[in-house]
C-alpha cells in the first residue's frame, strides 16, 4: 500500500515538470523562431558561386551547373540552451560573402570574419585571431587593400586583406547591422544610433553624419554623387555624398491612402535616373533620383526584405513569400517571374544575366533566367 502511494506521488511530481515544459513550449517557443539561421546572399566570381548556409557553412558551387565544389563549417557559438528562446548553438551567416582575388571573405554571427581560399576552402586567416567580437549581421566591403565590416559592438573595422591585421576602427553609438558601401575614398555605413556615417577609408576618420528618427539597417546606395538609404522611421533619404546634407526624403506612410508604411530593410537599386526602394510594407517605390518624387509604385503583397538586383534593364524583386517579379526599368512595368513559394530574405544577386536566389525555407539556391523566365538550375541543401 505504501509502495503504491509512493509510486503515485512520484508520478504526480513528474507531471509538474512535464506540464511546465508544455506550457513553456506553447507560450514561448511556438513560432518564435529564435534560432539565428542567417540569410546570406550569393557571391559570384568567375565560374564559382559562394554562399553561407543556414547551418553555418560556407559552400562553393559551380555557377554553371550548381554542383557543389567544397564546403567548410564555421565554428558555432559557445552559447546555447535548452529553450528555443536561448541563443542558438550554430553560427548564422547574414552577410553576403565577398570575393577578392583568391579569397572569399565571410562574416558570421559568432563575431568573426573569415578569409578563405576560394579554390580549396582552406582558411587563410580569421579576425579576431583569438576570441570573437560581438555578432556580425552585415556583410564585408572591399576597397584597395582593406576589407571593412561593422559589428554589434557598434564599431566599424578595417582590416588588411593580406594579413587580417586591424588597420583602424571607428566607434558609432550603437549596434551596426548594415553592410558598408565604399565609393572612392569614402565608406558609408548605417547604425542603430539613427545615424548614417561617412568615413575616410584610409584612416577611419569621420567625414560627416546624417541623423534620422530611426535606425539604419539597409546597405546605402551611392549613385551619381548621392547616397540613398532608407530608415526605420519609414523615410527614404537622399543625401549629398560630399557633405551629408539632405536632398530630399520620401515617406513610406501615406495617410490619404491609409497606408502605414514600414521599415526600409532592403537596399535600393538605381536605374535610368530612378531609384527602386523596396519596403517591408510590401511596396516597391520608384522615385525620381533627383527630386524624390514618386514615379510609380508596385504592391508585391508581402514584405520585401531581400534587396532587389539589376539584371540588364530589369529590376528583379523578391517578396518574402517567395514570389519574384521583374520590373522593366525602361517602361516601369511589372510582371511575375516565378513563385518559389519559399521564404526569401537574402539579397538577390545577378551575374551575366542570371539571377541567384537563396531561400530561407527548404534551403535552396536557384539560378533564374529573367529573360526566359525559367529556372536554370537549383541546389537544395540536404
Amino acid at each position: 500500500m505504501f509502495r503504491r502511494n509512493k509510486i503515485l506521488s512520484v508520478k504526480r511530481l513528474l507531471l509538474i515538470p512535464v506540464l511546465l515544459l508544455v506550457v513553456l513550449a506553447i507560450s514561448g517557443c511556438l513560432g518564435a523562431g529564435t534560432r539565428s539561421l542567417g540569410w546570406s546572399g550569393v557571391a559570384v566570381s568567375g565560374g564559382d558561386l559562394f554562399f553561407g548556409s543556414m547551418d553555418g557553412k560556407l559552400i562553393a558551387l559551380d555557377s554553371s551547373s550548381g554542383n557543389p565544389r567544397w564546403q567548410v563549417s564555421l565554428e558555432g557559438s559557445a552559447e546555447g540552451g535548452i529553450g528555443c528562446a536561448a541563443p542558438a548553438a550554430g553560427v548564422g551567416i547574414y552577410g553576403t560573402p565577398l570575393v577578392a582575388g583568391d579569397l572569399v571573405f565571410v562574416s558570421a554571427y559568432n563575431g568573426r570574419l573569415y578569409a578563405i581560399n576560394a579554390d580549396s576552402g582552406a582558411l587563410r586567416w580569421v579576425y579576431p585571431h583569438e576570441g570573437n567580437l560581438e555578432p556580425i549581421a552585415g556583410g564585408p566591403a572591399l576597397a584597395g587593400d582593406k576589407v571593412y565590416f561593422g559589428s554589434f559592438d557598434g564599431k566599424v573595422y578595417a582590416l588588411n586583406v593580406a594579413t587580417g591585421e586591424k588597420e583602424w576602427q571607428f566607434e558609432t553609438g550603437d549596434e551596426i547591422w548594415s553592410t558598408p558601401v565604399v565609393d572612392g575614398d569614402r565608406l558609408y555605413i548605417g547604425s542603430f544610433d539613427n545615424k548614417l556615417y561617412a568615413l575616410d577609408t584610409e584612416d577611419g576618420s569621420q567625414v560627416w553624419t546624417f541623423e534620422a528618427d530611426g535606425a539604419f539597417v539597409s546597405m546605402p546606395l551611392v549613385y551619381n554623387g548621392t547616397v540613398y538609404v532608407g530608415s526605420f522611421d519609414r523615410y527614404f533619404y537622399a543625401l549629398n555624398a560630399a557633405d551629408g546634407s539632405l536632398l530630399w526624403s520620401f515617406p513610406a506612410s501615406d495617410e490619404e491612402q491609409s497606408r502605414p508604411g514600414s521599415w526600409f530593410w532592403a537596399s535600393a537599386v538605381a536605374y535610368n535616373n530612378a531609384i527602386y526602394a523596396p519596403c517591408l510594407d510590401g511596396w516597391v517605390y520608384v522615385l525620381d533620383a533627383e527630386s524624390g518624387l514618386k514615379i510609380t509604385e508596385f504592391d508585391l503583397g508581402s514584405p520585401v526584405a531581400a534587396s532587389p538586383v539589376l539584371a540588364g534593364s530589369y529590376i528583379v524583386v523578391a517578396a518574402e513569400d517567395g514570389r519574384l517579379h521583374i520590373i522593366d526599368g525602361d517602361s516601369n512595368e511589372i510582371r511575375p517571374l516565378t513563385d518559389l513559394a519559399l521564404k526569401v530574405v537574402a539579397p538577390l544577386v545577378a551575374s551575366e544575366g542570371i539571377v541567384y536566389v537563396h531561400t530561407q525555407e527548404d534551403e535552396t539556391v536557384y539560378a533564374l533566367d529573367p529573360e526566359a523566365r525559367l529556372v536554370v538550375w537549383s541546389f537544395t541543401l540536404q
Partner: protein
Amino acid sequence: MDIGAIWDLIALNPMINSMVWLSSILFGSFGLTIIALTLVVRGLMYPLTIKQLHATRAMQALQPKMAELKKKHAKDKQKLGQEQMKLYKESGVSPAGCLLPMLIQMPIWIALYMAIIRVLAVTPEDFLNLSQRLYDLPVLYSILPLENQFLWMDLSRPDFFLALLVGGTMWLQQKMVTPVATDPKQQAQGRMMLIMMPLMFTFFSITFPSGLALYWVASAIITIGIQYFVAGWGSLKPTIEGISRLFRREEKYTRRIAEAEKVPAEVAVEADIVPEDIEQEEVLPDARGGDKRQDRERGYPDRLRTARRRPRRGRGRRPKRR
C-alpha cells in the same frame, strides 16, 4: 482566419505594441518596460487575483473537513462525492472559484510572456518579424530596437544572479500559499513542490534571455505583495517571525550592552540629583559629612533615606543557587 491569426490580433499584437509604446515613454529601456507592463497587467488583473486567492484560502480551510470525509467514506466513492458537494454548498465555496480567475488570467500571462520574447528579438530573424506586428504609430517604428542593457544585465542573454533571484522570489511566493499539511505524505509532496518550481525556473532562467527572468522576478514580487495584503505571510509566517525574533534578540543584546556601558554614567547622574536643601544640611556643624561609604544612610536626612535607591552592587544580587 486561423486560430493563430486570431490570437495575434486580439492578444499578442496589442501586448507587443503596448510594450513598445510604453518603452518610448520609459526612455527606450526594455528593462523598465518589462517591470512597468507586468505592474500594469497585474493591476488590471487585481480583482481576479483577489477572487482567486480568497477562493484558494476558503478551499484550504475546508481541507481538514475534507480529510475527515475521505476517511469516513473511504470505501464509498459515490457517497464521498455527495458529501463533498454538500460541504462545498454549505460553506459557500466553489472549486471553480479557484480555477476560473486563473483560467481567465492565463491567456493574458501567456500573451505577455510571448510579447517579451518577440520584442527581445534575440536573433535578426525575430527582429525582422517584429515589423509585421506594429501598429501605425510613428513612435513604434522609430523606437525599435529597444535598449537591452538594464542595470548590469544584457536582457537578451542569460544572467546568473537574476536566475538566483527568480528561484528565491518563486520560493517565497510558493511558501506563502503552501498550506501546512498534517498528513506526512501531503507534507512531503508540499515540500517537493516548494523546491521543484523555483528550481525549475532557476534552471530556465540560466538558459533563457534574462529579460524573461526579469519578468518572472517582477511578477513574483508583485504576487508576494498581493498575497501579503490579502492573507498575510501565510506559511511564511513562522520563518518571518523567526527572522524578526532573531533581529529582536540581537536588538535586545545591543540594548543590554548599551545599558551596561551606560551604568557608571547613570550612577553619576543619580549622584548629581541632589535636592537643593542638601547643601544647607551638609554644612550643619553636627552633620557627618564626607565619607558616604561609612555613612550607611545615616548621613542623609530621614526624608531622603526613604527616597534613596538601594545600592546596585553587592546587596542587589541574588544569592547563588547551590
